[in-house]
C-alpha cells in the first residue's frame, strides 16, 4: 500500500476511533452505576470494532487493550453476572479508555503508539476474575463455557465458513459468460497479518464474484501466515467479470505486492473439480487433485448467501461487522465525512464569489451603459445570480455547522472524575446542546468550557458538608447552557457554589501589581475580569485540576481567536455565571455600508434596529456630558462615530446626519453616522495581525469596487 493510501486509511481510523471513544465514554458515564444489557452490548460492540480496526492498522497495543475490555464485556453479556461494584467497573473502563485515547493522540501527532497495554489489561483481567469469583464462576466453570472470542494478539477473530462443504454444488458452467481464473497474490514483505488481509480480500471478493476458493483455507489460524508468505495466497475465482477487472481488483488489495492472474478456460467445460495442488499459472487445469483442496470446494452462490449468513456462527457476524466498520462501506450512507480543508477552501471560494459578484454588478462600465440603455433584463438576471450565490453560501455555511453536544457531553466525564477525587457531589445540567456553531469555533471553545467547568467544581462548588452548613442542598448544580442571540452564540456556565470573593481577588491583584487605580475605584465587573489574566489563581492550594493559574487565560486567548468575549457575574454565597459570547460564523455577514467623514464602514445588519433622521430638539446632554436622544418616547444614548474614531471631517450637526439604532441583547444605543450607502453581503477579513486591536472595529472587508470598508464591532459601544 502506498503511503498515500495508508495516510487515507489512517485518517479514517483516527476519525472513527475518536468518535467511538467519545460514544463509549458517553455510554459509560450514563451507565455509571447500573449497566443494562443494551449498554453492555454496545460497549462490547465498540470495543470489538476498535480491536478489529486497530489490528488492521497494526496497532497491536491498542488491539490488545481493547481486547481485554472486550473480554470483560463478553463475560458480562453472556453470563449477566452480578457486578459487585459498578462504579469500579466504570473506573476500569474509563482508565483503559484513557490509555486508548493517549495512544490515539500519539497516532494523530504522527508518533508511534508505543504505550504498554499490560497495566490496563492486567487490571481489567483482575477485575474480571473478581467478578467471576463473586459469581461463583471460577476458572473451572469458566472453562466450560464457549471461550470468549479468543484474540490472538494481532488478528481479529474470524471464522470463515469452510463449513458449508456439504452443500450441493452449483453447476457454474450452466451460467453463461462465467470465467474461472486462478490467481496468486503475494503480500509485501513485513506487512504482517497476511491471514487477516487475505480474509478481508475474500470477504469482499465474495460480494462480486460467483465463487471463490482459496488456499490456505484456514485463515483464522495464524499458522497460515507462513504458508501465505512462502507460496502466496492462492485463489480460484469464478466470475463474469473480465480479466482486467479482476486483475485490477486484486492489485488494489492493501499491501499487495504481486498478482498473478490466469484465466482457466478449460474450467468452464470441466467444472472446477479440485483443481490443483498449486494453482499458479498454467499447470492448474491439468494437475491432479491435491490433498489441500481435496474436499469439494463450496461454491458461494449469491442466492445461497442469505441463508448461509444466518447460519453462520455469531462470531463470524461480529468479525464481519468489524470489517464493515473498518472499511466504512455501510450499505446505505446518508452521511459522508469530508476533509475540513475542503470545506475551508469552499468557504474561501464562496467569499471570492461574493466579492466578484459585487464587482460585476457594480462595475463602472455597467454604470456608463446604464445611462444609455435599458438594463432591465441584466438586472433581473443579476438578482437571480445574487439569490443563487446567497443560497449557496448559506448551504456551505450549514455544512460547517456542528452542534455543541459533543463538547458539552464531554464535560460529564470531567465532572464525574473531579467529584470523585475532590469528594464533591455535582449534578451537571445541559441546556441547548443542539445549538449549532461553525466548526472552527467548536474547536476553540472546547478548552475554555472545560477550564471553566473545572474551576466551577474546584473553586465554586463547596463540599457537601459546607453546603449543608450554608443551608443549600448537598448536591451542587452546574448548568451548561447554549443559545443563539442574533448573530452570536451565548454559552453560559453557572454554578450554585460559593461565588467569587471580590476581596480575595482584589488583594491578589494588588500583590501581583496588576492594579492601575485605587482599589476602591474598581467596579465588580472589573474585579472579576482579573481572573482571566495569566497566572492568576486565588486558590491557595494547587490541586491537580486548577490553582496553577493556567486555564482562565486560555479561556480569553482561545476566545480572542474567534472574536468572542467572556464575562463573569457572581453573587457571593450564591454562585457565579461565566458567559461566553461568540459570533456564529466568522466568514460572511450581511452588512450595511455607511459613510462617516467620507470613509466607508460596514455595520452588521443583525445589530441594526432601524435608522432615522434626528431632530436637534430631541437631543439633550446629561451632566456627565453623555449625549442622548428621545425617540418615540424612548431615551437612548448617542455615540457620535466620528468622535469615537477621531474623524474630524464628519458631520457635526446632527440634522446633517442619520441616527442608527443598534442593539446588543436587550440594550440599545444610537450611532450618529453621515450617510447610508447600501446593504450587501461582505466577506469578513481580519485586520492585519501587525495592527493592534482597534476598539470598535472587528475587521475589514473588500467592497465591489476594491475599496476597503472597516467592519464596526457594535458590541464595543455597550458596556463602556
Amino acid at each position: 500500500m502506498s503511503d498515500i493510501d495508508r495516510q487515507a486509511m489512517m485518517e479514517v481510523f483516527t476519525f472513527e476511533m475518536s468518535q467511538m471513544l467519545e460514544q463509549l465514554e458517553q455510554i459509560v458515564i450514563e451507565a455509571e452505576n447500573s449497566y443494562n444489557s443494551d449498554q453492555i452490548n454496545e460497549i462490547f460492540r465498540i470495543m470489538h470494532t476498535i480491536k478489529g480496526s486497530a489490528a488492521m492498522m497494526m496497532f497491536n497495543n491498542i488491539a490488545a487493550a481493547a481486547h481485554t475490555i472486550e473480554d470483560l464485556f463478553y463475560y458480562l453479556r453472556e453470563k449477566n453476572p452480578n457486578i459487585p461494584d459498578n462504579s469500579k467497573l466504570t473506573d476500569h473502563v474509563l482508565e483503559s479508555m484513557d490509555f486508548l485515547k493517549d495512544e490515539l493522540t500519539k497516532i494523530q501527532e504522527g508518533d508511534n503508539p508505543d504505550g504498554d497495554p499490560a497495566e490496563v489489561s492486567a487490571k481489567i483481567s483482575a477485575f474480571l476474575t473478581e467478578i467471576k469469583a463473586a459469581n461463583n464462576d471460577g476458572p473451572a466453570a469458566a472453562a466450560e463455557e464457549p471461550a470468549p472470542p479468543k484474540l490472538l494478539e494481532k488478528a481479529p477473530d474470524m471464522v470463515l465458513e469452510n463449513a458449508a462443504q456439504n452443500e450441493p454444488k452449483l453447476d457454474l458452467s450452466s451460467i453463461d459468460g462465467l470465467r474461472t481464473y486462478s490467481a496468486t497474490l503475494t503480500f509485501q514483505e513485513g506487512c504482517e497479518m497476511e491471514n487477516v488481509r487475505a480474509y478481508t480480500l475474500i470477504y469482499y471478493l465474495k460480494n462480486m464474484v460467483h465463487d471463490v476458493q482459496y488456499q490456505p483455507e484456514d485463515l483464522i489460524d495464524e499458522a497460515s501466515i507462513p504458508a501465505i508468505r512462502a507460496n502466496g495466497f492462492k485463489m480460484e475465482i469464478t466470475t463474469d467479470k473480465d480479466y482486467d477487472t479482476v486483475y485490477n481488483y486484486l492489485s488494489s488489495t492493501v499491501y499487495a505486492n504481486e498478482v498473478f492472474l490466469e484465466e482457466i478456460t478449460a474450467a468452464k467445460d470441466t467444472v472446477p473439480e479440485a483443481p490443483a495442488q498449486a494453482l499458479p499459472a498454467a499447470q492448474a487445469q491439468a494437475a491432479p487433485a491435491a490433498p489441500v483442496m481435496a474436499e469439494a470446494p463450496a461454491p458461494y452462490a449469491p442466492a445461497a448467501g442469505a441463508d448461509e449468513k444466518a447460519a453462520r456462527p455469531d462470531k463470524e457476524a461480529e468479525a464481519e461487522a468489524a470489517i464493515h466498520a473498518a472499511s466504512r462501506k455501510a450499505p446505505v450512507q446518508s452521511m459522508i465525512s469530508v476533509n475540513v480543508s475542503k470545506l475551508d477552501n469552499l468557504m474561501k471560494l464562496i467569499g471570492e464569489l461574493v466579492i466578484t459578484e459585487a464587482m460585476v454588478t457594480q462595475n463602472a462600465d455597467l454604470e456608463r451603459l446604464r445611462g444609455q440603455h435599458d438594463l432591465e433584463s441584466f438586472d433581473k438576471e443579476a438578482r437571480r445570480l445574487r439569490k443563487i450565490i446567497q443560497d449557496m453560501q448559506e448551504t456551505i455555511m450549514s455544512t460547517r455547522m456542528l452542534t455543541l453536544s459533543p463538547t458539552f457531553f464531554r464535560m460529564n466525564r470531567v465532572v464525574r472524575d473531579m467529584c470523585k477525587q475532590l469528594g464533591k457531589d455535582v449534578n451537571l445540567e445541559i441546556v441547548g446542546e443542539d445549538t449549532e456553531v461553525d466548526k472552527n469555533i467548536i474547536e476553540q471553545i472546547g478548552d475554555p468550557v472545560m477550564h471553566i467547568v473545572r474551576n466551577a467544581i474546584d473553586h465554586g462548588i463547596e463540599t457537601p458538608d459546607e453546603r449543608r452548613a450554608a443551608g443549600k442542598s448537598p448536591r451542587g448544580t452546574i448548568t451548561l447552557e447554549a443559545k443563539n442571540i442574533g448573530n452570536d452564540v451565548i454559552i453560559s456556565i453557572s454554578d450554585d457554589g460559593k461565588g467569587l470573593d471580590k476581596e480575595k481577588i482584589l488583594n491578589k491583584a494588588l500583590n501581583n501589581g496588576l492594579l492601575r487605580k485605587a482599589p476602591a475605584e474598581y467596579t465588580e465587573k472589573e474585579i472579576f475580569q482579573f481572573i482571566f489574566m495569566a497566572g492568576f489563581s486565588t486558590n491557595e492550594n494547587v490541586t491537580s485540576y486548577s490553582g496553577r493559574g493556567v486555564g482562565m487565560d486560555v479561556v480569553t486567548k482561545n476566545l480572542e481567536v474567534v472574536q468572542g468575549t467572556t464575562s463573569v457575574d457572581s453573587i457571593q454565597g450564591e454562585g457565579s455565571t461565566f458567559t461566553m459570547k461568540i459570533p456564529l460564523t466568522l466568514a460572511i455577514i450581511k452588512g450595511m455600508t455607511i459613510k462617516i467623514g467620507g470613509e466607508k464602514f460596514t455595520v452588521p445588519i443583525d445589530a441594526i434596529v432601524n435608522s432615522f433622521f434626528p431632530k436637534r430638539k430631541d437631543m439633550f446632554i446629561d451632566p456627565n456630558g453623555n449625549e442622548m436622544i428621545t425617540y418615540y418616547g424612548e431615551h437612548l444614548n448617542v455615540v457620535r462615530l466620528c468622535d469615537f474614531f477621531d474623524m474630524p471631517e464628519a458631520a457635526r450637526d446632527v440634522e446633517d446626519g442619520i441616527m442608527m439604532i443598534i442593539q446588543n441583547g436587550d440594550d440599545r444605543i444610537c450611532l450618529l453616522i453621515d450617510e447610508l450607502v447600501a446593504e450587501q453581503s461582505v466577506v469578513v477579513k481580519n485586520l492585519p495581525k501587525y495592527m493592534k486591536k482597534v476598539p470598535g472595529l472587528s475587521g475589514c472587508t473588500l467592497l465591489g469596487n476594491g475599496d476597503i470598508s472597516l467592519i464596526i464591532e457594535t458590541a464595543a459601544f455597550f458596556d463602556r
Partner: protein
Amino acid sequence: MSDHYDYDVALDDDELQQPGNQAALDLHLVFQIEDEFYAINVSEVADILPYGKIRKVPKTTDYVKGIWNIRGDIIPIICVRSKFMKPEKEIDFETCIIKVQYEEYSLGLIVDRVIGVETITAAQITPPPSAKLSYANQFIKAIGRPDTGVRMILSMERLIF
C-alpha cells in the same frame, strides 16, 4: 489590479530561490528617503508598487498609515519617513510602496523613491558605528559601500516593530 506594475528585478524568482546562489544573496533593493539611500535585502522584498489610496484605520500609531488591498490581500502600510521621525512629504509620481515579508508579517513601506537593485557583497559591508547618535540610526543593521555610494542596510525587525 490593472494599475499595478512590477519593476524589473535583475534576477527572476527561480534564480533567487536557488540555494547557495551567492549572487542572489548579495542583491539589495535601494531606495531613497530625503537625501539618504537605504537598502534592504531582496529576500525580504515581495513586491514594489506605485502609491495608491490607503484606507485609514482610526486609532492607530501615526506611522501606520492604514491598510491597503493588494489583489485581495489586506496589508498594513507603514510610512518610513514618519518612522524615522522625518517630516512627511507630499505624495508624487516617484512615491512607492515596497511590500515586504518579515516572518509571518506582510506589510508595505512608503518610500520617496526606489533606485533599483544593486549588488552589495559581504566585503563591502561594514558594521554601523556603535554610538547611537540619531534616532534613525537604531534601524540600521550595517553599512554597505558599493561603488555607487553609501547604502544604509536596514534591519527589518527594528524597522517594523
